[in-house]
């Protein structure tokens, strides 16, 4: 908890810097990270940056000490992803009060116009006598993704950085991936998404899902590679007013929440008894949940936002 306090003052950019720490330690993937986290090339690249050693101690080193060994362009391809990274998310159920800001931010930034959001907050109750809780649920970015297994055309694929994406220009719309996914996170464009000219004319790339969405193909949460690329956190993470979400890199063993606090992932999961959804299915999700014990917020508070039958605020029909 002290470490949390120490970190309290840090800006969101600390997430960026966390990335660099690992780069220094390995002295291998530095340039790629610099590309990934473009901000390190801004004037404050002169400043010192903070690094975390493998035992978890923090230290300050000059930014120039970070060795850039690779050519910038060598690394990134939307199908392969960032090398030497493995993205994870932690969802702290003790903090969720169904504010739904994650959902509205995701809907807005991915221009979701269908009826079904990519991130849903379920009202859960595991058994009659146990307490209800709110469970934000997004694509689990499984390491053994059932959806990727069944896709006949390699339209949905798993990247080396752990992210599962969809190539909407290849998808044939058979919806087998939706049938295979046990987490019900995939949505289908049953009709033309009507996202407006600016989005519809944008150049398509699989690592910014929804820009544009395509009729007759499947969409889902993309773990926001376009934000990671800018050195920022996924929309849902930064939008959450309660710091429910933390996002980071498993290889760095660090996750950062919307307020910029960083945590040692392994310690967090150990201390709070983290778990993954439907572990028994063997899907190996990249999203961890912290149980809703010692809750900071009341479950009932969330009921005022509970809309059983609505997830997307629809714009006016054109």
């Amino acid at each position: 908890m002290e470490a949390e306090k120490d970190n309290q003052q840090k800006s969101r950019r600390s997430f960026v810097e966390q990335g660099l720490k690992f780069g220094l330690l390995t002295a291998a993937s530095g340039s790629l990270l610099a590309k990934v986290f473009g901000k390190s090339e801004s004037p404050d690249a002169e400043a010192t940056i903070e690094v975390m050693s493998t035992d978890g101690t923090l230290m300050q080193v000059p930014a120039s000490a970070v060795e850039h060994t690779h050519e910038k362009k060598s690394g990134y391809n939307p199908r392969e992803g960032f090398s030497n990274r493995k993205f994870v998310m932690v969802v702290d159920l003790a903090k969720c009060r169904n504010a739904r800001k994650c959902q509205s931010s995701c809907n807005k930034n991915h221009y979701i116009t269908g009826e079904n959001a990519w991130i849903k907050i379920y009202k859960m109750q595991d058994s009659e006598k146990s307490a209800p809780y709110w469970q934000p649920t997004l694509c689990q970015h499984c390491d053994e993704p059932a959806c990727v297994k069944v896709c006949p055309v390699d339209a949905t694929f798993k990247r080396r950085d752990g992210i599962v994406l969809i190539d909407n220009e290849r998808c044939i719309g058979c919806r087998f991936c939706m049938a295979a996914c046990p987490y019900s996170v995939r949505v289908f464009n049953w009709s033309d998404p009507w996202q407006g000219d600016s989005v519809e004319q944008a150049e398509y790339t699989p690592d910014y899902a929804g820009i544009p969405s395509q009729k007759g193909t499947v969409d889902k949460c993309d773990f926001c590679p376009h934000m990671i690329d800018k050195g920022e956190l996924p929309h849902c993470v930064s939008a959450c007013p309660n710091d429910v979400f933390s996002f980071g890199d498993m290889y760095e063993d660090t996750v950062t929440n919307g307020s910029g606090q960083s945590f040692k992932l392994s310690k967090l999961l150990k201390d709070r008894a983290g778990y993954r959804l439907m572990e028994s299915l063997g899907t190996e999700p990249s999203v961890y949940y912290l149980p809703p014990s010692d809750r900071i917020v009341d479950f009932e508070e969330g009921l005022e936002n509970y809309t059983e039958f609505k997830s997307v605020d629809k714009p006016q029909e054109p």
Partner: protein
Amino acid sequence: MNTAYEKMIHDLAPKKFSWKGNAWVAFLVLIILAGIYSYVQQLKHGLVITGMRDYALWGIYISNFVFFVAVSLVGSLITAILRLSDVHWSTPLTRIAEIIAVAAIIMAGIAIIIDMGRPDRVLNLFIHGRLQSPIIWDVIVISTYLVLSILFLYFPLLPDFTIISKYSDTNSKLTKWYRALSLNWSGNEKQTKIYSRSIKVISVLIIPVAFAIHTVTAWLFETTYRPGWDSTNFGPYFVAGAFVAGSGAVVMVMYVLRKVYQLEDYITDSHFDKMGKILVMLCMVYLYFNINEYLMPIYKSTEEEEVHLRSLFTGEYAWLFWTAILGGLVAPVGVLLFPKGRKPLPLFLVSLAVVMGAWWKRYLIVIPTLSHPFLPIEGVPEAWRHYSPTWMEWAITAATLATALLIITLLVRFLPIVPIYETAEERGLLENQSENESL
């Protein structure tokens, strides 16, 4: 002249439709046109014109696809299995079975394309196909089965084409077609040898492929985690059900053709009796698999399985479920166990019930499972919790069934419905014939 043989050719050679036949074709074409109109709407607006949504993500397009695959299996049963077991009574039925198999497997392929969100990208299956996906397995086995079924229909037709080209008006276009398609069949020793050998080879090849098409279709569901699909029983359960549906379809076509073309000499009451016996056996085998499929999960009643099975046994699908099981399976067994129940008309009616039950059974396999996912259905419009097909979806589905019937009808119009050569051979008419010719 061998009058029995002549009469047989006369009876079995393709005939022009009466007004009834033409009206039937017109009726089918009308249904198909309604389906084409609806499909154009679907291409224009997307699958939003159907009742499917993110939870009920598959609907009657898929259950109808499973039905077609099921029906197509009968080609291998009646023709290949019975042929290899040296059963001869079924010879007059082989052509009907093969025609049904070819029509059904063509329509299975079309039905699955209709379900696709992006039919314009169908070639991606070949360009980017990945062997680990059961859909690619299905593409492979269904196309293999289609080729084998066409060959299995075509090879026994070679002698028949020669026979009818000699029989019919020599100058008509159709006769020229028959002659070309006969590949110069003259019935000499060398040809007969290749002929019987090829048929034997296809008979052997087509059985594993037939089992594969429906097993793989079962795997489309079984490879997911969903309660109701996550069952090791699914492959044999689907294959058993397929033989039931296909045999029912054969009986129906047999009955109609016999009536329309007065084929009582070739398709006899004894054929109906024997088909009835086969059907009752298949129904009992399928019933056995159904008991396994439903009884063991409800005995254990894990949470997810219980929700699913309750909706079938007592919930929103109960009416449909019990009608399909009792009306389409149990009652037919009851009727067909008695010789009177295997007379042509009762058997026809029972087969109608069996085939309709089989269609709805596939609906019950595909749809209820989708309305019970692991996580709650929340944050979507209330209507998405249930699936009810739209009229356009029905129109398209009806059109696929009508197209299958149209293919069958047209093949019946232009091909001898009962194999002439093989039937004559079995009746010993052929030897007399060649003697006569040499005289």
